[in-house]
Each structure stands twice: as structure tokens, then as C-alpha cells.
């Protein structure tokens, strides 16, 4: 039967259209449902939960009945000397990583790219990729095996050569260096994947032409290979700047000890220690929210810059 009222016709048709689409794709929605539920429960409920940063949250009263305190937790944190310590440690660790870690995969992939023997190249690649897949617990274990004061290999070698033991892991001055070193050992090889892929895309004719023009290997690297990966370098650098507030919890947590606490605490280890261990939920949620908000801002900014630099960004 035709609908007589002309003005009512459009919305009804539209509703039907949506309904028909929903009905048509009901099995697709069914497929996505478990994932959707997981997302709502484990990703979006906690986002709502950050509101306890503005409360004096008590687990006994619950979220709904706890008292609202505005920005009190934030002022408490900003006025705490810990705030500057955490910020300093986080920025220092990341800046060290930017200066010392960041160039390593680039140099390593340039070196690998110059290898003509495919078998040797693949072997080295497999070896340097491997540490990426080990847990930080294993990495920490290996670090202790090498550097601990009592049983560590390095100290025992030093002793047998007639030197004194060095307290590698309990001296605050060395701590950031050890974190950087661990990162290089674990991730530098893995970092070459993307550069090597970019190098593989270079047209071989460019190298041939350069050789005919008399360019040696170094000159070829300088004027063909490096320009070819230049964009990737810039983009990765910008993306890294977007994560300058992030230091991996596990790496720091597993290496830290009471002797180096002044240089080893970062936001996440602080939140774990004060929040989880001492149940100061509202205060540490505020700390976490501060970190997440800055992080979000930096990631959005860096993504914008990546797009300006000619990359596709990640959204």
C-alpha cells in the first residue's frame, strides 16, 4: 500500500533503509560482536574510569558515591618534588635514546645493505633480529649475568685482569646508560627492517649509472642510499618525538633497585608503586591521565608533522 502523506514518506523510507542494512549485515555484526564487547569493557570503561582522577575515590564507596574534588589530585602532583624527578628521568631516558639509539639501526642497515654475500647478510640479519622477540625479563636476566657485582661476567673478567669490581647496576650515574644499551642490544637489529625495506626499493640502475660515472661505494651510499631512506628517517624521528613521554614500564621496572631510585623512576613505575602497591588510586590516576593527555597531544602533533613530511601517518 502506498503512503499517502508525502512529507512522512522520506524519514520512514530512510529508517527502513537503515533497518534493512542492519538486517542484511546481521551476521557481520555478530562476527564483530565479541570484539566490540571487549573494546567497550576493556578499553572504553577504563576511559570513563579516568574520572576518578577528579575524585577522592574510595573502593568501598565506589565510583558513584565517592566525593568529587576537582583538580586537587593534579595540584598535589604538580607541587610534589616527585613530579620533576619523573619528568626529568623520562625526558633524559628518551633524549639519550634519541641521540644514541636512533642512529644505530640506520647505520646497521647501511652496513647490511653493502654486503654482497646474501648468505652472510641473512645470517647476520637473523641474529640481530632475534633479541627483539625475547621478554624484558630475559633481557634483564642476561644483563645481570653480564654485569652484576657478584657473579657478573664483566666484573669477574675485570678481577682476573687485576682491576677492581665496578658496581655497574647500583650506581645511579650508569643507570640511564644501561637502559640505552639494553634498548640498542634488544631493538637495534629489529629497527633495520624498515630501512632495509626502503633500501630494497631503490632502482639498481641508479647504482649502475653512478658506478659508470666513477662513484665509489661510499659515494654511492652517500648520494643514492641515504637520500632513498631520508623520508623514512624523518618520519620515524617525528613519530619517536610523539612518544617522548613513554618509557617502557617493564624495562625500567626490572632494572631498577633502591640504590638508583632517584634516576630510575618514570611515570609508569611510580604509578605502579604508589597506585597499585599503596592503593592511592585517585592520585595515581591523575598522574596517568596527565601522562596520557600529553602523550595524546604529542602523538596527534607528530602525526600531523608526518603527513606534512610526506608520509601517510597512521590514521
Amino acid at each position, binding site marked *: 500500500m502506498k503512503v499517502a502523506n508525502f512529507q512522512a514518506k522520506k524519514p520512514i523510507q530512510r529508517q527502513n533503509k537503515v533497518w534493512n*542494512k542492519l538486517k542484511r*549485515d546481521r*551476521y557481520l*555484526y555478530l*562476527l564483530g560482536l*565479541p*570484539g566490540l564487547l571487549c*573494546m567497550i*569493557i*576493556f*578499553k*572504553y*570503561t*577504563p*576511559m570513563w*574510569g579516568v574520572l*576518578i582522577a577528579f575524585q577522592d575515590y574510595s*573502593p568501598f564507596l565506589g565510583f558513584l558515591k565517592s566525593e568529587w574534588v576537582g583538580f586537587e589530585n593534579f595540584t598535589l602532583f604538580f607541587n610534589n618534588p616527585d613530579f620533576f624527578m619523573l619528568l626529568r628521568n623520562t625526558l633524559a631516558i628518551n633524549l639519550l635514546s634519541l641521540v644514541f639509539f636512533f642512529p644505530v639501526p640506520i647505520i*646497521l642497515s647501511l*652496513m647490511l645493505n*653493502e*654486503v654482497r*654475500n646474501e648468505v*652472510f647478510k641473512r645470517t*647476520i640479519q637473523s641474529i*640481530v*633480529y*632475534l633479541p627483539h*622477540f*625475547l*621478554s624484558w*625479563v*630475559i633481557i634483564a*636476566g*642476561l644483563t645481570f*649475568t653480564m654485569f652484576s657485582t657478584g657473579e657478573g*661476567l664483566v666484573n*669477574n673478567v675485570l678481577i682476573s685482569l687485576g682491576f677492581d669490581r665496578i658496581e655497574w647496576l647500583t650506581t645511579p650515574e650508569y643507570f640511564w646508560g644501561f637502559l640505552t644499551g639494553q634498548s640498542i*642490544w634488544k631493538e637495534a637489529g629489529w629497527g633495520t627492517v*624498515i630501512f632495509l*625495506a626502503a633500501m630494497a626499493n631503490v632502482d639498481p640502475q641508479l647504482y649502475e649509472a653512478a658506478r659508470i660515472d666513477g662513484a*665509489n*661505494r*661510499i659515494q654511492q651510499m652517500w648520494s643514492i642510499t641515504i637520500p632513498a631512506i631520508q623520508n623514512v628517517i624523518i*618520519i620515524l624521528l617525528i*613519530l619517536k618525538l610523539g612518544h617522548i613521554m613513554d618509557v617502557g614500564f*617493564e624495562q625500567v621496572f*626490572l632494572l631498577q633497585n633502591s640504590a638508583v631510585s632517584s634516576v630510575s623512576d618514570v611515570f609508569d613505575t611510580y604509578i605502579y608503586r604508589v597506585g*597499585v602497591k599503596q592503593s592511592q588510586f585517585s592520585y*595515581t*590516576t591523575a*598522574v596517568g591521565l596527565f601522562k*596520557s593527555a600529553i602523550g*595524546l597531544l604529542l602523538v*596527534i602533533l607528530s602525526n600531523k608533522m*608526518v603527513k606534512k613530511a610526506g*608520509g*601517510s601517518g*597512521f*590514521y
Partner: protein
Amino acid sequence: MRESLGERIFANINVILLTIIGLISLFPFYYVLINSFADPIEAASKSFILFPETFTLSAYEYIFSTKTFIRSLGVSAYLAIFGTALSLMVSAAFAYMISRKRLFGHKVLMIALLITILFSPGIIPNYLVIRELGLMDSLWSIILPGLLSGWNALLLKTFFDGIPESLEESAHIDGANDLRIFFQIILPLSLPALAAFGLFFAVGYWNTFFNALLYISDPDKRPLQVLLQGMLVMSETGIGDPTAGAEAGQQVPPQTIKMAAVIIATVPILIVYPFLQKHFAKGVMLGSVKG
């Protein structure tokens, strides 16, 4: 074209340097492996062993005689197998749903997924949600939050984007519904990608440490990495239960046991590594910037 002398020197120095880098990457494993097989008496008398004079499996025998280690190994294996299977199913199904552009609301779902990647509420809100759900001390606390990881779902979605919708349309005409299409056409077509993601998930579950640290305090449900943390980092001497293996523990110095534990925890990674390696370069490129 012949290489000049300078080029040959350059190439040789390069190979030597890369060999050194390779050795630096491998050396800690070599040292740990050698010492895990070392005779306890030799290990105690020398300050370090670079080449073994004796060879014994006593550290491994001890470890496998303790219930604690076996149990943790079991927990980690369970997480790696069961968790991976579930994560793969849930993530792939969700990714498939948002990859179909005809779907009403596919853009909203896509944005919702992106938000979870961009903004993380932090440790405490996650912790409180797990607590409120009563999942503390349950292995579900490790599996459930990881079922849909934003990054992996996004990468899978990119993969499914490449499967043309016309393929389904013809299946639709033949009378198949979306469930059938997904399970009987899409999944078999995507096996190589699923294998790659599965291995990545499995490594992730095997290496789970932080979530277990937060949510699991029952010693019977401790994954391997948490047990290892106790042994390696906090230097708790005993993985031995009060009952089994305590007398054996007196004969074997803890150092060789630690080394053996590291080796045992690494072996599964080494086993899946060759399979993983085939896929990961592609996986990384899929998810990263195209310069």
C-alpha cells in the same frame, strides 16, 4: 666491473664489523647456554666459564623436578596457545567486520578502534576494571583485555581491505551468509596472514609480564616470566617447592639453575622464530609508514 682496492678494503671492514655485531648479539646466549650445562663444582671453583670442560644436565634435571617451574611453564603454554587462538578469532572477526565498507556504521567503529590506539587511560583505571569484574587471580585477566588489540586489529583490517567485496557478493548470490563466507572463504584465504599474526600473538602471550604482575598473585597461576623475575631479578634462590627437589637444590648452585631457566624460557621463541621470520618484514611494512 672490477672492484678497486679501496672498495675491497671497505667491504672487508664492513664484514668484520658486522661479524663483531653478530657476536655481540649472540654472546650472552652462548655464555648462558655454556654455564647452564656447567658442572656445579667447576662453576663454583672458577669465576667464569667461557669454554666448558665438563657437561652436565643437573641444572635442567633440577628445574624439571620442581613443581613450581613446571606449573609456570604450563600456565605460559596455556596462555600462548589458548590466548592466541581466542585473540586471533576475535581480532580477525572484528577486523573483517570493519573492513566491509558497505556496513552501516563501519566508519564509527573504525574511529572507535583508532581512539583506543591513541588514548590509553593508564594503569590504574584498567586495574580497577579488572578488579571490579572479579578477574583478579584469574588467567582471564590476561587473556580478555588482549583479545582485541587496536594495532593488530588495524593491521588485520588493512589486510582484509585487500580482499575484494565482489568475492563475497558472488558467494552471497550462491546463498552463503556472512558467517559462512567468513569461516569458509575469508579465513582459509587469509591463512598466511593469520599464521603471522598468530605467531606475534603467541610471542606476546609467552612474554606476558606486566599484566601478570598486576593481576596474578596466586603462585599456582604465575606465568613463566613472573617466576623468572623472582629467580633472576629479585634473586630469590628457590624455585623449589618445600617438598620436591629441596635436597637436589643444595647440590646445584643457583647460578647454573638461573641460566638453565633462561634457556628453557627462550627455547619456544627459538622454535617459532624461523616461521615468524618469513612473515615479519611484510607485517612490519603493512603497519608502518610508507616513506
